């Protein structure tokens, strides 16, 4: 748990809806949900959510703060945008789920060992490094995420797939030597650092304000 989390708990005193409205990406839309359930029924991974979006929205209103933020549910979003396209109230549900997932990490409350959370962070680190995704390193990172021995096993099991991709020139062993990237890497890193600082300062200032 982080200092920001403690500050948020102190500030919002059991008004989780207000906390989400103020601090989560597109969170101000949550109050518009009318509990029709079209989002939950439209989700391709709906059956795998502990709490589908409709339920998450009600839990936010019911102050189920820790249950929401530590849930694996938001990490089931495939970004298919079915819920956004169909929501009769026009809620940007996909973005709210992404926002809740990210906020749960900012506060240190995220679900533990959630595979999509881990892969998503790996993906972000990969793209930040050179400005473009290195698919080979991302794939290897995914294979070896649970240690070397497990990684060798997974890599062996996927050997044919890898060979197929190499043969079709859709995977390149050369990417291990650096690979594609932006030429202005230092500017790119400074830009992202600045954006992270501005966002952290905004959320931090909000947490500190009484």
């Amino acid at each position, binding site marked *: 748990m982080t200092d920001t989390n403690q500050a948020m708990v102190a500030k919002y005193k059991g008004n989780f809806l207000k906390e989400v409205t103020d601090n989560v990406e597109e969170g101000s839309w949550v109050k518009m949900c009318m509990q029709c359930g079209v989002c939950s029924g439209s989700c*391709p991974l709906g059956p795998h959510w502990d709490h589908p979006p409709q339920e998450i929205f009600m839990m936010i209103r019911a102050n189920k703060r820790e249950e929401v933020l530590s849930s694996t549910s938001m990490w089931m979003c495939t970004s298919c*945008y079915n819920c*956004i396209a169909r929501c009769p109230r026009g809620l940007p549900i996909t973005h709210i789920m992404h926002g809740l997932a990210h906020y749960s990490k900012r506060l240190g409350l995220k679900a533990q060992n959630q595979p999509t959370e881990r892969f998503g962070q790996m993906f*972000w680190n990969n793209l930040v490094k050179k400005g473009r995704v290195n698919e080979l390193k991302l794939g290897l990172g995914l294979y070896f995420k649970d240690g070397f021995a497990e990684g060798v096993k997974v890599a062996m099991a996927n050997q044919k797939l890898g060979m197929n991709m190499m043969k079709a020139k*859709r995977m*390149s062993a050369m990417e291990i030597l650096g690979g594609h990237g932006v030429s202005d890497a230092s500017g790119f890193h400074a830009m*992202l650092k600045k954006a992270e600082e501005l966002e952290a300062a905004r959320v931090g200032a909000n947490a500190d304000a009484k």
Partner: protein
Amino acid sequence: MAKRQYSYYPGCSSQKGASSSNLDRSVQTLCQELDIQLNEIPDWNCCGASIGYAGGGELPRMTLSARNLALSEKHHPDQDVVASCAACWLNTREVQERLNHNPALKAETNIALQSVKLEYSGNKKVRHMVEVLIEDIGYDVLAGKVKKPLEGLKIAGYVGCQTNRPFGINGESFENPMYLDKMVETLGAEPLTKYEKKVACCSGALMFSEPAKGQALVKDIIESAYDHGANMIVTPCPLCQANVEIYQDDINARFNTNFSMPVMYYSQLMDVAFGRSATDSALDGNIIQSKELRGIADK
């Protein structure tokens, strides 16, 4: 006629040796045929895809696409931005809309962009390659280019998610967009208009983190194509293409199926129909070959 010029955002997976390099190759061939010049945005970066939110907050992610848009504004001021990748197009267009509707977020984005000496104004039109084909070129011109009609081929048009929602193409419905079927028909093949999985989800990036759940979705997408008697699936989206094509061995092992269904890009079908070779059409980039399509290309 003067060449049409666009500010092109190819995206990470279209690069040499990357997972949809065959999409880019077939699009480049298509553009030669249609007198389209794609000017690559200099030094473009990743759009963050659909999974970037795990590590990147709202502002850093907005800044990624804003940098690309600002580069396009600077280097190609009079050209629309065009992307061939569904996620690249979606993210770039979405960021532009969100920044232009939120002055505070736009101001912060521009502060971050000072680090790369760029400024984002938000005056670009962000378009998908398919929109260029439909709106700027038109079905009639496409039909006129056909030298080898794809006669006898039954094709399941798999539009997927991100080319279709939340923006969509050409004002079509989210539930049953028709443009891919119309393209198939224009090329002389038979579109399977009753294909139920047209706008179903392939699981996107969750195929990597949740393979069992992802493969279950893809199994249904392929099975439905077989049920309708398809020779192949066609899609505009690079992640749909990869997810539906490359795991068929795993799916066969997991579900005791016997799938071997080719999954092509619309651009590959057009290249072949326009008389280009199998190599120009990047057919060698597919893991599961369509004998029928290759037969037409080699004719």
